[in-house]
């Protein structure tokens, strides 16, 4: 390890990458501390990846194991693809936080513990037997333990201010934030700016928080206990301008951008649900883009309002998580029949039923592909990281609009709340999106025939508009209420080919079922050729991943390749229809491993489609994979 000359009396050690886990009570401001330090590092030029992990309760009982909130940050001078398997540094605000997270700390790792959170009450709530204090009983001897009385130091820093004790204590997290900045040699400009913006209207609070932040920083400098700092150089990231983005932000921005490029109004009908609600919140802050957000009475109304909006010529979109998506199944069938654009995002969470709302999972793939009555094919795509959420949301809109179809986009709680640096594109470089509008007719229609109640009505003389006449891609024209001469009626009953009128004709039904399926299948013709994420073009083993397992698989695959294993990694964004090149690719490896945070849903689809004996690595714990887990599974399968 390089030794760099320390400022003052402190040593500085260089690190390639670092994993820090901040943990404490949900009232301790852990999420803020974590995301602020993330921003600092990202701005500094590190690659970063984060994993916020908080309890289900709004305010879980203080001090309990259930109440622990965590924020894991991985930053480095090299590419990082996951928030890290094990941490280098664990910051704990109380005993419960230690208890819950100690197993994630590397042997020999650093613990920074707020001693005030280890009083006898906290120890009891955390379930330490006989209230034995781990900070003092020697059980942490294998770690570099630093005990800091954050509470006292914070109060000290604020002595003389007019704040009450409660208010004072609320800025504890700033002390930690300041200290950690010191420890990793980062300036506290970022957090200071943040505080200025946040407390613009409350100068007293601004002052207090700034004071504590600085106190934390200075504490590192002055305290005798800390003799080592760490230096993580900027990562060799592609040139360009970056920002941080979470997956939910990515989806929201992707939808807005795509609607703008398509020249459509964005209508977002949604019903709040964890972890999808932030998309609604984000969109509702962007009304100046003409975005209309509609908090519907339930998920059925949400998707139906989006269908209505699309029928009205806007881009209708909706998002939810598993239980809410379950409610949308019937309406999705309607959208299939109507053949209008619709984007449905499922931010997956732990299931089944209410399951584990704040935890991540990938177990809604089958629901997305198969969860409707009848033959109701809907394209299903999946994002693999926070930034990819933008890309895939954009693609979802493009496909929905250009192919006149509902599209389901799968993300999950892990990428939705996690953040990573994004080299954002310029608006002008985004792919064009061209809605297949029908052409209004400027001439008046002839009068239609006479009415005879018993026999029905005679067809009008002029050639009728055919709402279900398809182009070569199988796509029907989009005629929007208000367009002259294109009046037509659509609905969920089987419709006659071309006219869209109701039809019960058996062969027509077969034709329409086939046409709808072909239309969706043809979407694959527009996909880019399939590309490996890493590894040899043929060989021993192919890892097929999808969704937020990306980082862990990539990390493991690169490592294995470095070690000389014949292992490749392909990450699927298109789950239905599959990429046309997937068949050939699968044939070029002796073994196939499919890691999923479910019990084998993609694996089942691959086996059925390609008759390939794909093996699964399946974890259903509400937690992302670690790279280590992937690695172990690959080695095991290779050895078989």
């Amino acid at each position: 390890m390089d030794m760099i000359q320390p400022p003052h009396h402190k040593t500085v050690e260089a690190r390639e990458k670092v994993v820090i886990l901040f943990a404490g009570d949900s009232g301790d401001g852990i999420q803020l501390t974590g995301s602020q330090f993330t921003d600092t590092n990202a701005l500094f030029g590190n690659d970063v990846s984060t994993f916020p992990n908080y309890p289900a309760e709004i305010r879980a009982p203080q001090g309990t194991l259930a109440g622990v909130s965590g924020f894991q940050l991985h930053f480095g001078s090299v590419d990082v693809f996951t928030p890290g398997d094990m941490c280098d540094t664990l910051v704990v605000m109380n005993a419960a936080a230690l208890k819950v997270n100690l197993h994630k700390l590397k042997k020999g790792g650093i613990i920074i513990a707020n001693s005030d959170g280890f009083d006898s009450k906290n120890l009891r709530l955390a379930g330490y037997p006989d209230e034995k204090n781990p900070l003092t009983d020697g059980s942490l001897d294998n770690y570099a333990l630093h005990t800091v009385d954050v509470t006292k130091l914070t109060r000290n820093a604020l002595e003389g201010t007019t704040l009450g004790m409660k208010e004072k204590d609320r800025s504890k997290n700033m002390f930690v934030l300041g200290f950690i900045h010191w420890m990793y040699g980062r300036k506290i400009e970022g957090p200071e700016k943040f505080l200025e913006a946040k407390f613009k209207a409350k100068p007293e609070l601004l002052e207090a928080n700034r004071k504590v932040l600085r106190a934390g920083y200075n504490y590192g400098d002055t305290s005798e206990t800390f003799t080592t700092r760490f230096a993580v150089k900027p990562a060799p990231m592609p040139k360009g301008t970056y920002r941080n983005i979470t997956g939910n932000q990515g989806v929201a921005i992707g939808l807005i951008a795509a609607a703008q490029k398509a020249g459509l109004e964005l209508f977002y009908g949604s019903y709040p649900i964890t972890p999808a609600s932030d998309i609604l919140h984000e969109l509702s802050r962007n009304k100046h883009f003409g975005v209309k957000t509609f908090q519907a009475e339930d998920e059925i109304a949400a998707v139906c309002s989006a269908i209505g909006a699309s029928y009205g010529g806007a881009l209708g979109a909706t998002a939810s998580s598993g239980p809410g998506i379950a409610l949308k199944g019937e309406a999705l069938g309607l959208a299939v029949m109507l053949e209008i654009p619709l984007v449905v995002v499922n931010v997956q969470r732990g299931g089944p039923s209410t399951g584990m709302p704040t935890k991540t999972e990938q177990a809604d793939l089958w629901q997305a592909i198969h969860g409707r009555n009848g033959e109701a094919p809907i394209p299903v795509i999946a994002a693999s990281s926070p930034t990819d959420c933008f890309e895939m949301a954009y693609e979802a809109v493009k496909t929905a609009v250009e192919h006149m179809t509902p599209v389901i986009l799968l993300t999950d709680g892990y990428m939705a709340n996690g953040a990573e640096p994004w080299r954002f594109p310029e608006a002008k470089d985004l792919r064009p999106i061209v809605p297949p509008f029908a052409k209004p007719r400027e001439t008046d229609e002839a009068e239609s025939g006479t009415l005879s109640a018993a026999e029905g009505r005679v067809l009008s003389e002029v050639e009728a508009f055919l709402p279900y006449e398809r182009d070569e891609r199988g796509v029907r024209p989009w005629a929007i209420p208000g367009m002259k001469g294109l009046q037509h009626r659509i609905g969920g009953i089987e419709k006659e080919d071309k006219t869209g009128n109701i039809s019960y004709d058996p062969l027509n039904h077969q034709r329409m079922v086939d046409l709808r399926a072909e239309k969706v299948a043809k979407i694959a013709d527009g996909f880019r050729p399939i590309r490996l994420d890493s590894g040899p073009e043929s060989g021993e083993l192919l890892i097929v991943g999808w969704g937020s397992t990306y980082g862990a698989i990539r990390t493991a695959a690169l490592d294995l390749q470095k070690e000389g294993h014949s292992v490749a990694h392909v990450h699927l964004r298109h789950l239905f229809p599959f990429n046309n090149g997937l068949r050939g690719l699968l044939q070029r490896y002796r073994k196939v491993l499919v890691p999923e945070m479910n019990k084998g849903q993609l694996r089942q689809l691959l086996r059925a489609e390609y008759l390939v004996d794909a093996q699964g690595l399946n974890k259903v714990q509400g937690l992302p994979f670690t790279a280590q887990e992937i690695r172990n599974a690959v080695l095991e399968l290779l050895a078989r």
Partner: protein
Amino acid sequence: MSTVQPAAPAPKKIDYSSDQQVRWCPGCGDYSILKQVESVLQVKGRPKEEIVFISGIGCSSRFPYYLDTYGMHGIHGRAPAIASGLRSVQPDLSVWMITGDGDSLSIGGNHLIHLLRRNVDINVLLFNNEIYGLTKGQYSPTSPEGAISRSTPMGSTDHPFNPLALCKGADGTFISRTIDRDPKHMREVLLRADDHRGTSLVEIYQNCNVFNDGAFEVFTEKDSKPFHTIYVEQGKPLVFANGAKGIKLDGMTPVIVDLTNGTHSQDDLWVHDERDPFKASLLVRFFDDPRKEGALPRPFGVFFVSDRHTHETKMNAQVALAKQKQGDGDLDALLRGKQTWTIG
């Protein structure tokens, strides 16, 4: 067919009928409603392409197919949600919603009450035949207690909704009732509904001659009609029975009084004021079983009208305000976000 009414006023400018065969049972009350809606469209004269009909599922919900306007035959109960989305992005069209008592009060009840409270500007025609027609005769949430139907061979045990009391409870801004057999009245109510800005709820008693024939007979038959119906008109006292009876308030309780025996005159009567929310709350409560001795007559007409901002005006106003405050959305600014850094 007895329910088909005299043709709409000449000159016939636009023909709003589509080329599809009308497929209701012969004699169904739905024909009469279709006829009157066409007539109202005639009178209003909006170009066909500016009119949209959204429906759910049920016999009544086939309606959109019969008009050469834009139309969507949705899914069961969800028309209010579809129409709300449409209306949000198309504030200038004429939007109508067609629904049945099962469609809007059973499976779709929640969407209906939320539509009303949001006051989305559409005309809702609720075809109430007190039965499930399309699925062949099960009782509905408006079927009277004891109704024998295919799903209640021993009689329904459910207390039925009073649809207008429910809609009033949901803060609807236009509450009205009419009936298939009185096309002239229906036409007037429909015209007023179309004029109203906000959700115009028109309950239409509609005879299902196949599964629930005669459900509203007492309100249409010559002999019984005068005694069991009351037509409310703005500013007029509540008089019925060909002028022989009236309604007055005894404290807060409406009672029937005789106008012929000298005890009461029209001056004593409740005067209809469709702008009075408290009166309307009571008026919708005239819902006695007509077979009951001393039953209040069933009112028809426009019970309540109030002005409240519509859903889409406020929604659009916020968009406009946001643009005014923040400027038209700049996509590059959005992509960039609040904080960036540059490498290289």
